[in-house]
């Protein structure tokens, strides 16, 4: 096949990707996103001399490359998407990737084009704005633009390595569980040889980082070769023919419904949500969504301690308030499973499903956050502060759930990309969160004032949550169930 059709497929896929983003984020949101990335990166680079001043350059580089690698890992899970498209199990969404079903073109070829498209798209959409933003603050940190350019190149290679790894793993997953297990084991051993064994330097595994050890171009060439090799292996592992499995499942709905019968009308919808959460494999990501930001907090504490030489200590009240705020990730995940179009023909409104989702949200967040806060209280030896910490966690969880459901309904993932909705969300949620966090910082020096502030803010947001929760019916009853929010 000449290159012509591949170029056309590439162009079609680029258009498709752009329109898909537009359907999720709206025209303004998708245009603004690279600008937001640029501004964020510029801000970070301008503040870097202050925050990163005391940190060894190689550690900063390690963080940057790990970030790029992680982003690539996220983008590269496309093999799985390929399988979903080919077996027509992606719901109402059909993609150019599915053309081998009908046209005389090999799936591996189309998948290769899809891979290149994703790399180009994400580089244009996020990595280039990120590098340009970094260039803004570079002169202040005494870093030349040439170095920023080199950093952009190695970050890009780390991104491509991440894409290659996750693409290969997703392709192996489709081919054979044993192969996937072997590759995971190999990957685990490689990582273990760096951490904790210390047999290899991080740059000897993450080759783009290795370039910075001695500015040896061989690292650049070999990392490009590894990224290509990984992607080629992934493409070769893809099947040309897919057969959709027909999976039977143990009945869950009726037993769950039986346990929820006291909830009346909401019981059926809640049982459906719970079954989908379990079968959709989202329970793990929901918990991970709670844990991942806490790792970020840990990293922040580490950065501030290492960078500014200031030891920061967060008490259990701080963590309580913060974990309450993180409830937004849980609400977002439980909206990520099913567009519920089926319910358009049943006597059920979007508002009913929003209320069922909220019940599930409260059940998940209260149980996880309570365990988390109590655990931190024990670890920090702050059992005396547990009452306030649980209050901060509980009130923020309720308030964040109320605000998020009011502003985004069943379309949290897409609507939070809308600048207007995001601004409203921030205006509602950030001030009370800041007040709770300030109260947590005051506890050591002015415990009574801190407790009064905390109790006052918690009471205020709990009271504010009531009318918001009551308004959900009128807010969402006129909407229809759909993939994107098109009321």
């Amino acid at each position: 096949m000449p290159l012509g059709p591949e170029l056309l497929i590439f162009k079609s896929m680029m258009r498709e990707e752009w329109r898909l983003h537009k359907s999720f984020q709206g025209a303004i949101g998708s245009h603004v996103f690279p600008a937001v990335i640029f501004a964020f990166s510029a801000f970070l680079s301008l503040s870097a001399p202050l925050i990163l001043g005391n940190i060894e350059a190689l550690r900063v580089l390690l963080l940057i490359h790990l970030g790029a690698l992680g982003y690539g890992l996220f983008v590269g899970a496309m093999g799985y998407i390929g399988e979903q498209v080919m077996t027509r199990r992606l719901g109402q969404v059909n993609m150019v990737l599915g053309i081998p079903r009908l046209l005389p073109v090999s799936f591996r070829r189309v998948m290769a084009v899809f891979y290149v498209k994703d790399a180009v798209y994400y580089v244009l959409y996020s990595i280039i704005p990120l590098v340009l933003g970094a260039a803004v603050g570079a002169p202040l940190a005494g870093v030349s633009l040439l170095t920023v350019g080199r950093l952009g190149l190695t970050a890009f290679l780390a991104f491509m390595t991440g894409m290659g790894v996750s693409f290969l793993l997703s392709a192996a997953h489709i081919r054979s569980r044993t192969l996937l297990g072997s590759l995971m084991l190999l990957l685990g051993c490689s990582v273990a040889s760096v951490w904790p064994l210390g047999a290899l330097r991080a740059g000897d595994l993450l080759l783009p980082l290795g370039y910075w050890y001695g500015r040896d171009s061989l690292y650049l060439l070999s990392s490009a070769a590894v990224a290509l090799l990984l992607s080629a292996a992934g493409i070769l592992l893809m099947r040309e023919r897919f057969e959709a499995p027909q999976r039977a499942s143990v009945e869950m709905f009726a037993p769950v419904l039986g346990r929820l019968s006291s909830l009346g009308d909401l019981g059926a919808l809640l049982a459906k949500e719970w079954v989908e959460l379990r079968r959709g494999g989202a329970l793990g990501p929901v918990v991970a969504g709670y844990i991942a930001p806490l790792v970020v907090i840990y990293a922040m504490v580490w950065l501030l301690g290492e960078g500014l030489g200031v030891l920061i200590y967060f008490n259990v009240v701080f963590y309580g308030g913060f974990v309450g705020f993180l409830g937004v990730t849980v609400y977002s995940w439980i909206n990520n499973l099913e567009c519920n179009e089926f319910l358009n023909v049943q006597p059920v409104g979007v508002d009913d499903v929003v209320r069922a989702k909220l019940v599930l949200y409260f059940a998940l967040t209260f149980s996880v956050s309570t365990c988390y806060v109590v655990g931190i209280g024990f670890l920090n030896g702050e059992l005396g502060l547990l009452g306030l910490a649980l209050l901060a966690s509980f009130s923020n969880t309720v308030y964040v759930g109320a605000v998020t459901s009011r502003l985004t309904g069943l379309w949290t993932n897409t609507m939070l990309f809308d600048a207007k909705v995001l601004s409203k969300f921030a205006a509602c949620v950030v001030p009370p969160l800041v007040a709770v966090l300030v109260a947590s910082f005051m506890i050591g020096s002015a415990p009574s004032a801190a407790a009064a502030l905390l109790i006052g803010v918690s009471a205020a947001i709990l009271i504010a949550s009531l009318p918001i929760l009551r308004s959900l019916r009128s807010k969402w009853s006129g909407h229809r169930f759909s993939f994107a929010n098109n009321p």
Partner: protein
Amino acid sequence: MPVITVENVSKSFGGVKALYEVSLTVEAGEFFGLFGPNGAGKTTLVRILTGEIGSDSGAGTTAGAPWSDPMEVKRRVGIVPEAETPPTFLTAQETLELVCEIRGVDDPEERIGEWMGFFGMEEKRHVLCRDLSKGQRQKLMLAAALIHGPGLLLLDEPFINLDPIYQRRVREHLRGFVEGGGTVFMCTHILEIAERLCTRVAVIDRGRIVGEGTLDQVRRSEGEALEDVFMRLVEA
């Protein structure tokens, strides 16, 4: 006694007019067929009748409930939408259990067994909907529309993806349903089936009703096929 009334209904989508002052009435016990070319406004009208979307102007009722109360409309009717969309992660059995629970069906197990049997889906009871074939999903959508025994069925291409055996079974069931006093409002492109079933028809083109009446009334001459009637009205 009318079970569907549509009075001067108009609807636009982002500046594109889908319906122009459409008016029609469907009486109890009728098998009413709505035909039209692709994009003529059939599905839009069905979505208005089911309360799924509102109209820009005009008014009407479905099964005696005003469209301003879509929940009541949905409670009173059985609906098969244009696309088959049962919940991805529920099994066929669980989907019908959900429908029975929402609709307050008294004897869910019996009804589910009855409809699974009717559609030959017993072996697929415990298969996730995402793994069912299109035809099996369509059968499930039909079962979900029929399971609570509604008096009015709103069907948008109900025979799509069904094999000839089940097209016949559904056809016979719908005929018996109307003979028993039920009412069917159906959109379809399969004019042969419509010709055998419908007691009254309307043809819609570019958002306007261009012909309406019993089969004899819309025929120009005795024996004129419905397909010819359709072509004549649309091409005119």
